[in-house]
């Protein structure tokens, strides 16, 4: 049985993670990859903070802050790319430290639709699902539609997760959904990314599955959808 968790300890954890996020953000902006890694590995994992909390509360939150800093003209595109590159390295290291869940055998393909260059959100989703025990094929940014279709035929996944960040790539998203439906009818499609957030009605109209971008919701939704599809 787990020990009871007090409100005070939850608040203390939240404060610790928030402080770590601020220092991680500073390391990103300074281009200090080693310090960013040290913070999450030594002061995060080493101090007993769960990997999922570091992925979401430090790396993901810092990335959101980076986006806002660019929007406010406080950092350049180069700064933003440098920071994101650091977060990719850090996610890799966190992945190594994550206690992998029991392998479920459920296969998931995660990809950015053709034309979509922002792969960080998809990467995070792939890590969340992989750590939770899914067998994940992560295809990264700008996956050509024909190649995605071939991969789906090859892997025969239980679920495909598509990421689209820029709204003008929603046409590509629509084409991808139509193609997946034609090639593998019945394969559930999960949709995520900022563009889906901007146009949620499109995701619904296409019958794709959406959920909030936190690990628990993603894992729970993926499990439920696969279970329902198998019935």
């Amino acid at each position, binding site marked *: 049985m787990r020990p009871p968790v007090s409100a005070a300890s939850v608040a203390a954890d939240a404060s610790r993670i928030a402080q770590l996020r601020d220092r991680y953000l500073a390391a990103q902006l300074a281009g200090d990859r080693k310090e960013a890694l040290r913070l999450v590995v030594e002061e995060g994992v080493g101090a007993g903070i769960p990997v999922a909390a570091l992925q979401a509360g430090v790396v993901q939150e810092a990335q959101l802050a980076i986006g806002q800093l660019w*929007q*406010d*003209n*406080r950092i350049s595109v180069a700064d933003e790319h440098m920071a994101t590159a650091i977060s990719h390295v850090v996610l890799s290291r966190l992945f190594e430290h994550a206690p992998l869940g029991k392998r479920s055998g459920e296969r998931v393909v995660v990809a950015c639709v053709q034309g979509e260059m922002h792969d960080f959100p998809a990467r995070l989703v792939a890590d969340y699902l992989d750590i939770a025990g899914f067998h994940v094929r992560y295809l990264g940014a700008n996956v050509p539609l024909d190649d995605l279709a071939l991969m789906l035929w090859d892997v025969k996944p239980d679920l495909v997760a598509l990421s689209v960040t820029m*709204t*003008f790539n*929603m*046409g590509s998203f629509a084409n991808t959904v139509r193609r997946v439906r034609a090639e593998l009818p019945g394969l559930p499609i999960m949709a995520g990314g900022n563009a889906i957030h*901007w*146009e949620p*009605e*499109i995701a619904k109209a296409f019958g794709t599955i959406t959920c909030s971008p936190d690990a628990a919701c993603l894992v729970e939704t993926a499990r439920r959808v696969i279970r329902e599809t198998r019935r």
Partner: protein
Amino acid sequence: MNDDLLRLLETHGHAISQRVLDDMYREDPFWTRRFGDRGRRHADEDSDFHMQYLRRAVDANDPDVMVRYATWLRDVLVSRGMCSRHLAENFERLARAIGAHAWDGGGKAVAIVDGAAGALEYRAGTAARAVQDLRFADDGRHLASYLADAVARGNSTLFVDHVLWLARELPGDGGIAGLDRALAALGETLGRDAALEDAASLVRCARDEIAAIRA
């Protein structure tokens, strides 16, 4: 009909948006002086984004796609030295340029782009909207727009930095004196409405900065 319009926008959109930008740069030296070649390169890229989002809004039959893009882009550009009126003017010109082609079904694209320009008005009843609604000609209109953006964001720098840039660019004390007169007129108008005291205070602050330069 959507498919035809999308094809036309795909084929001609880049040229249309570039012509709009060319006109803006030719008619107003502000653009080159304030933002230089780098600014023009960004403007070229943004123009292509305008067309991409417009095509998406047409395809989705959803004008809000363009509205969300416009308000998001406004935040990006205002923090980089432009004002809402600049972006609205860009959209208004783009709508007129698309409308001039008299394409079958082109009115839909025109309405979407005009809607995006309209969406750059702040919410009715706010101080920022009241400042936007002040009626000034030309330079005064842009001053009011910078002021409205600063008020909307609670960020005085957006307005004061623009005024200081103008003061540095204007030729001699005569030019600065003209700018100060425009600010005085703006301040006087704002002073008639107690709800706009924050905006009036920003104008006074900008005038103080100018006085320091003249001294």
